[in-house]
């Protein structure tokens, strides 16, 4: 067995944490991801699979639940604690019964969580999404710094940005710069 050191998307041993004027920007690395895409004609079964796995109804378009969000028509991303679900895709596939294509996504993405009272002021500088109108449970895909990112509004004071892992440095720079210029 190789003795490898796990690195975060930003290339460090520990997740990056930034704070500015009562707002925080935290790199999140302890969440496993898997996408669930319905097979043709099995859309209802795939939605039921997501409901079984997450314990909540499969999210409607542009919505998120506590542990899943909508990616596209008949397609969802499931989130779970990495410590207990490192093989999340395999766990879901075992229950899929051919209704959905399940794909491991954990290491394809990086995630930054922003918390604070004035997140809309930050995101209006970064993307098209109108954060002022978002309440909790909203999930949209939009472009931030030319990168296709998921924006998950868990509550008006807590937003997760899930972007391409290979551009984690650029995304983090954009978020931190916007945070410092907006506040």
């Amino acid at each position, binding site marked *: 067995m190789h003795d490898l050191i796990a690195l975060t998307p930003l290339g460090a041993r520990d997740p990056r944490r930034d704070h500015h004027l009562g707002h925080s920007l935290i790199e999140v690395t302890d969440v496993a991801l898997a996408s669930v895409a319905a097979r*043709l004609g099995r859309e209802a079964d795939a939605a039921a699979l997501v409901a079984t796995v997450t314990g909540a109804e499969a999210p409607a*378009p*542009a919505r998120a639940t506590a542990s899943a969000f*909508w*990616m*596209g*028509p008949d397609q969802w991303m499931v989130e779970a604690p990495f410590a207990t679900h490192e093989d999340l895709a395999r766990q879901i596939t075992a229950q899929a019964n051919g209704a959905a294509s399940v794909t491991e996504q954990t290491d394809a993405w990086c995630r930054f969580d922003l918390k604070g009272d004035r997140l809309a002021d930050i995101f209006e500088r970064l993307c*098209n999404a109108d954060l002022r109108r978002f309440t909790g449970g909203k999930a*949209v*895909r*939009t*472009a931030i710094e030319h990168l*296709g990112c998921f924006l998950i509004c868990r509550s008006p004071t807590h937003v997760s940005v899930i972007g391409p892992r290979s551009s984690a440095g650029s995304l983090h720079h954009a978020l931190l710069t916007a945070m410092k210029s907006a506040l």
Partner: protein
Amino acid sequence: MIINHPLLGPRDAAEFVYKGDAALIHRPDGMAPDALEKFIDYGYLRDNPAGEHRELWFHEQGDRSWLVVTRNTLTHEITSVELARDVARREGRSK
């Protein structure tokens, strides 16, 4: 220009990519005896209407769905936006 996405509501046209005439949904059968003529038509020949035009748009910076947008090429007025898969199924293509 704003495209009124059937699932997500109004979204900026900059999030979309134009993919061509909506007739591209109807890919000819490559095994048919007249496949060559059909594919020349499919690949190269387009109507160029001054007025209403049905076209394919791809929501690249969004949910990655393909849409059939009916747009007036003279005024840019958009009169209808549908998911391309719904249009394709209605027109007899299920895959």
